[in-house]
């Protein structure tokens, strides 16, 4: 469903992606792991067209992402951003129903609100939250609202950018569980980027490790611990010693 072939991206002299090859099948939950600054977010942004790759090809459903109608393409996607990226000036329900209130998929306001409240309920938030502003919510609640917004238009593909960063372990567990449940219900294809190994084990069908701008290892999550790759081994065990250079 999603295929990246030899994707390169540099920012000035910083070569972030140096030939990324990756495939994600329909209905699969792919988790990309890797250290900070290895370009995990850049991969997602390249797929979405938020960043234009310098070279390589990205296909979704067999079509080059740079071709065809952009709105149709983006309508397939939902995304949960690292900091939730909720719109400060809009109440929660309008954040969730943003896509339903504008553009081609526009619905009547009352219906959009109803859908938003239902999606909020799905992520464990009551209707009393609907009229609050994002600044009035805790970090965990903001993540849930971001998740509700990502699933509001029932997209076929959902991206999760560090879904548990900044949350306490219990809230992180709740978010992981929600993601797993919702994805199973919707049958969506997902790509998650994270360095939280608990999330990886909770969410992933397959795991890909990005290191030095390339996919270093990829395989089913069950095989991750047995992968005889020193980089993967160091990363999942969280050791400072190993082939991955660390700053001290």
């Amino acid at each position, binding site marked *: 469903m999603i295929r990246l072939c030899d994707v390169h991206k540099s920012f000035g002299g910083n070569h972030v992606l140096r030939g990324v090859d990756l495939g994600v099948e329909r209905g699969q939950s792919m988790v990309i792991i890797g250290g900070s600054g290895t370009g995990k977010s850049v991969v997602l*942004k390249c797929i*979405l*067209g*938020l960043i234009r790759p310098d070279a390589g090809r990205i296909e979704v459903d067999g079509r080059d992402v740079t071709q065809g109608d*952009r*709105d149709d393409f*983006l*309508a397939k*996607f*939902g*995304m949960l*951003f*690292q*900091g939730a*990226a*909720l*719109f*400060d000036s809009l109440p929660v329900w309008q954040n969730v129903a*943003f*896509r339903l209130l*504008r*553009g*081609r998929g526009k619905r009547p306001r009352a219906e959009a609100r109803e859908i938003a409240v239902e999606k909020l309920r799905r992520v464990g938030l009551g209707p009393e939250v609907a009229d609050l502003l994002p600044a009035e919510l805790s970090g965990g609640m903001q993540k849930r609202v971001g998740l509700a*917004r990502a699933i509001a238009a029932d997209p076929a593909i959902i991206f999760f950018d560090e879904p548990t960063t900044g949350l306490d372990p219990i809230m992180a567990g709740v978010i992981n569980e929600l993601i797993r449940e919702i994805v199973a219900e919707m049958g969506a294809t997902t790509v998650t980027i994270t360095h939280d190994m608990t999330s990886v084990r909770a969410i992933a069908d397959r795991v890909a490790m990005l290191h030095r701008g390339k996919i270093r290892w990829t395989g089913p999550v069950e095989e991750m611990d047995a992968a005889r790759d020193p980089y993967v081994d160091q990363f999942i065990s969280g050791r400072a010693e190993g082939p991955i250079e660390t700053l001290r």
Partner: protein
Amino acid sequence: MIAALARIGRLALAALAALGRIALFTVQTFSHLVRPPFYPREFGQAVMSVGWQSLPVVALTAVFTGGALALQIYSGGARFSAEAVVPQIVAIGMVRELGPVLVGLMVAARVTSSIAAEIATMKVTEQIDALVTLSTDPMKYLTLPRVLAAGLTVPVLVAVGDIIGIFGGYMVGVYRLGFTPVTYLQNTVDFLEPLDIISSLVKGGAFGLLAALAGCYFGMRSSRGAQGVGRATKGAVVAASVLILAANFVLTEVFFSA
């Protein structure tokens, strides 16, 4: 010597590149005027924020400036027995120059900074990226409504500023300098010409567009972090102020060069 020339060349190239980017940004913004979808709700909110909420500061600036102008003209005019021209000079000074320029600079301080800070914060917190993933063009949703609102409401603010500025001069003229109310108003009305008012409103429109475009441009190009937001805001206000003063000179030349 060559190093100095190279540096000048680099600066000139950088300035030209920046001008090109701003021109492209302006063209992109206005190209959305004819391409749906449109966002009337965002436009309405921008009108309230740029126009309605700027009224108090514009009114205060104008009334004090008009009053001070009357005092200056009276004391300056006294050196060559021309105290009687206070109403005429206040009117022409406010309508042709001070009204549009002061309102433009006030809008740059209040609106440009707010637009730049808001959009830059949206950029660094990935809200702009979120807009794109939600099939919403940030230029259409954020930039066009603000630019359009500023272009349409700042002329109204300038008209209000002109009237209040003249009123400030009138208050000082009548209650402090001893002019009779009827004479003061008669001299004001008789002296102003339609071209004065037209130039004032055109300047207002141009300054509004420049102020909003600068805020949006610097906000959209903001780099990461709080420092990026600060730099974008400062850059936007400085650019808007300089552009407004430069445009004022050009428009004055266009309207009154004969």
